[in-house]
């Protein structure tokens, strides 16, 4: 399989370095007045840990997501960052109802997604779509690209007519920068970046309002990442989409998101506007995360201070008492191990869960 010769635009894009923190900032619209699209309140996802196959008994709980709250306005992109295992993907899966959340509320369209019956949930599923991390396993290898993109339209009945559906598949492929003739191909005949475009086309097929990008670019080459980021930004502007962008790459998040929430061990520790969070991080964990981003200049890199967080992420089965970050926190005081810090607004729009600040 050889890829088609790259167009000049693509070549220059491929040669360019990945989006740098602060180097390129997307034009940010005024979003303060936009209505809220989705509200997550005190969301909890505790997975039971059981022993015994026939008569399982509870021996513990994995608190993958432990009481997080955020709201996303229409047209906004919220970045959700954190180490692996901090619960960011589980949060996305709860919103998609792939997991049945243990507690809390997810309000979308005035309905609470958590206790919605299967039928009403399926009606709402059209509006909430997802783009997965792995472009190889997110497409059914036995289905043609055209069928993969058309299937959600068929099931949701948005394009009941076969000819209209085919035309829409062509349009979506073009929109995502692919030759419409790919519709007759199978996924294994395409490269990772091309497949990810198919994943995006599938998500767009039913004209959603909200898209969860679950590490949507993490598995791609750096040059392809830049292309996919640009595609996601173009689509957001064109269709007024709202994204929940789950990622661990802070520079990508800075480029693409309006606001960022930092997760640690199932909790949001800090949430603020993008520029505010990167320019003025308040939580010690956020500070450590940002300090870990390398600066592509050896001179600066040599002189700047490195705060490397010591130790490992504790087990979510038995999280630390009080503030979950206190065993690793450089500025922890005795108080931190006793009381759970409140998630409070320290500045307008800047929320931190830390009692020291």
């Amino acid at each position: 399989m050889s890829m088609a010769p790259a167009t000049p635009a693509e070549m220059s894009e491929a040669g360019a370095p990945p989006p740098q923190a602060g180097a390129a900032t997307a034009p940010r619209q005024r979003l303060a007045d936009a209505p809220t699209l989705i509200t997550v309140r005190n969301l909890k996802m505790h997975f039971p840990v059981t022993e015994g196959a026939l008569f399982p008994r509870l021996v513990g709980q994995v608190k993958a997501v432990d009481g997080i709250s955020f709201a996303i306005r229409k047209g906004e992109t919220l970045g959700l960052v954190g180490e692996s295992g901090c619960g960011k993907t589980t949060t996305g899966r709860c919103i998609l109802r792939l997991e049945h959340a243990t507690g809390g509320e997810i309000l979308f369209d005035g309905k609470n997604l958590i206790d919605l019956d299967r039928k009403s949930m399926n009606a709402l599923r059209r509006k909430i779509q997802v783009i997965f991390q792995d472009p190889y396993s997110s497409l059914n290898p036995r289905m043609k690209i055209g069928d993969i993109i058309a299937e959600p339209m068929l099931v949701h009945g948005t394009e009941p007519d076969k000819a209209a559906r085919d035309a829409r598949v062509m349009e979506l492929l073009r929109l995502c920068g692919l030759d419409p003739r790919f519709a007759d191909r199978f996924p294994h005949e395409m490269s990772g970046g091309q497949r990810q475009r198919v994943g995006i086309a599938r998500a767009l097929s039913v004209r959603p309002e909200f898209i969860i990008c679950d590490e949507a670019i993490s598995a791609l080459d750096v040059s392809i990442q830049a292309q996919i980021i640009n595609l996601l930004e173009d689509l957001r502007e064109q269709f007024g989409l709202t994204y929940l962008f789950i990622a661990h790459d802070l520079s990508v998040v800075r480029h693409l998101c309006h606001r960022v929430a930092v997760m640690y061990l199932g909790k949001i520790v800090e949430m603020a506007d993008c520029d505010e969070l990167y320019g003025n991080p308040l939580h010690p964990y956020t500070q450590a995360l940002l300090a870990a981003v390398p600066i592509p200049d050896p001179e600066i890199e040599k002189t700047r201070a490195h705060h490397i967080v010591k130790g490992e992420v504790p087990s979510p089965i038995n999280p630390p008492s009080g503030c979950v970050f206190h065993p690793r926190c450089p500025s922890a005081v005795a108080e931190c191990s006793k009381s759970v810090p409140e998630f409070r607004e320290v500045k307008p729009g800047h929320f931190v869960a830390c009692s020291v600040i």
Partner: protein
Amino acid sequence: MSAVADVRPEIEVVERPKTGLLLRMLQFSIRNPLGAAGALVIVIMFVMALLADFIAPYDPVANAFDRLHQPPSAENWFGTDQFGRDVFSRIVYGARTALLVGFVSSVVGATIGLVLGVASAYFGGRVDLIFQRVLDIFMAFPLIIMALAVIAIFGTGAQNVIIAITIPFIPRCARVVRSAALSIRELPYIDAARANGFSHSRIILRHMVPNVMAPFLIMITAFVGQAILLEASLSYLGLGVQEPTPAWGLMLQGGAEEYAESAPWIAIFPGIAISLAVFGFSLFGDAVRDELDPKLRSQ
């Protein structure tokens, strides 16, 4: 939107040349000569079964009391049996019985097992647990014992033999398919289908079943040989196909009991036919497994 449509797509399709069927068959034979030998046996069986009327020199059920126990000769290539019937003609017609029973029972059994196995893996949890324990009970009986029990309930005859062989195949296929389906259930494209609210039947039939076709086809080819052997065993015990229908197991029974010393050809030739058929299907089954399982393929 129209502005977008006019733009040349960034990524275009590159056409690939298609390989001819004959060339691919040749490549397969070079890659896997044993599998090709198995395929040859299967092809010969099919030709015998389909063109039996033209290949067989004599009527397979007509008795000829003036030509009992004739040794192999130019007129009767494989000799004649205790009723004067031509053994070669009966073997040719016997291929029909063998293939009919073998294919129908293995395809039906494996297909039921496929759907049950995938559904069990998809629903998981308690459904899966209970279903697997039921399968364990069925699997505790050897193939032949299970088949005998079914025959005891339904009685003999070709149709009941097919049922008797189908039933013990179901749990065996369901078990293998379930394990393949369990790993597929966790893949993101199944999550994508669930996140889109597709129905259970759509996810099972359109997204999971097509992705467990490799183990399914391997099970079928392995089952056909076993089914032929099982049918021969049942017929040999007098519980399968009934006289005068030409069936290899039945011929073996007629010949082996009384004429093993005086007219051994009556039993030897159907015995060779059974062995060759089972051998051919198992060789071909192994080759199919090698071809379909990418982890075993060396290219």
